């Protein structure tokens, strides 16, 4: 499936590991969709299902994020550099409600709330893993 260019959402992204992996990631499993791999261009979306939404609760931060099921394809663009990466939704996350109001900015324009989590492969394609979080636009 090709990656679209219709705007879907904007916010912060962080990164997470999943699938067979080393260290504490080894216990993370293959995620809510059963397909998650750290080395693939994949993402976790906070509303893949009702059960997922009940955990992440982005609505508590004022984010009425649309439901996108496992396998949905999204294009994630770094707000500052414009670098993009195309990802497939493969897990439920991040826990938006735990970081309500957190902002990441570039050049004075800020994105608020954690709305997507990327695998290390996807995150490192648009930023540095050691930065931990980035402001992004999401297209589908």
């Amino acid at each position, binding site marked *: 499936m090709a990656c679209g260019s219709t705007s879907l959402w904007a916010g912060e992204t962080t990164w997470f590991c999943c699938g067979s992996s*080393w*260290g*504490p990631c*080894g*216990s993370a*499993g293959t995620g809510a969709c059963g397909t998650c791999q750290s080395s693939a261009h994949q993402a976790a979306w906070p509303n893949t299902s009702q059960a997922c939404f009940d955990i992440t609760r982005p609505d508590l931060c004022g984010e009425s994020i649309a439901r996108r099921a496992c396998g949905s394809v999204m294009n994630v663009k770094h707000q*500052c*550099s*414009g*670098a993009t990466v195309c990802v497939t939704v493969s897990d439920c996350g991040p826990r938006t409600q735990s970081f309500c109001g957190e902002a*990441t*900015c*570039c*050049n*004075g324009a800020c994105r608020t709330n954690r709305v997507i989590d990327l695998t290390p492969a996807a995150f490192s394609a648009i930023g*540095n*893993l*050691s*930065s931990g979080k980035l402001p992004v636009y999401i297209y589908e």
Partner: protein
Amino acid sequence: MIQDLAPLVCGLLLAATGAAKLFGRRTAQIAANTVLVRVLGNRHRAAFALRAVGALEAAVAAGLLAAPSAVVPGVATAVLGAGFTGYLGYARATAPETSCGCSARDEGPIGTRSFVRAVLVLAGGVAAAFAGGTWWHEIAGRPGWSLLVLAAAAALVAAVSRDVDRVWLPVRRLRLRLFGTPLPTGSGRRVPVEASVELLESSLAWQASAPIVRSALLDHWDDEGWRVLRFAGVHQDERGARPVSVLFALDEEATIDSSPSPAVRVSVIDDDTQEAILLDLLALSGLRTPLPLV
């Protein structure tokens, strides 16, 4: 006598952990994270093995509770404890990041508590093997003493069990409230380099250099109030692609809290010639169209 109560304590403990392994819905999932997968070849065999151990624990528990004065259940418990200790030692030595699968609700790397639990089962088994009477006679004969021993045993089991970790949370909270946090306040420390990188990454200078920078932070140092951050990059011009160092200098005290729009000095140095390359980064990155020359 304490050893007369050992079969009751060990029996209840093994009944709980055995039943959890045998009937737990997550046993297969937990088995998949243990060293058993590697030893037995696949996760189905590992899950089967974990359930079989659960069945064994349940059988030994039944023996301990029903025939406490017999020697066999006590010896069987001690053998189980020795087996657990050996298994943990092997797993710890060969695959420290695997889970122990000890109590079936319990996932986590093999730590000191896992070993203490296994050794306690071994000790309990030895004590049970030497039991002279039955635990029900002991309780009926000396109820106060028995209650005290059982309470102490329960506390010991709780202390080495991860499952009841949340019981300790309010206690830990109270301790912090009374005695304050033991964590460093960081007073007197300089602004961490990571805070400078964070500030840089939120700046217009970073945005403007995005087409050139390739690496993450390569090197950093402080010099007369400036913090210099060095990145590696590639500059493409009419002569082809050249490796460059991209240097950012910013106030060593500045953070995203103190200066949301920092002034950042940027320069690009050719790695081969060591000469500065004069670039209009804002124009290059499309952030500002150059003014027409008149």
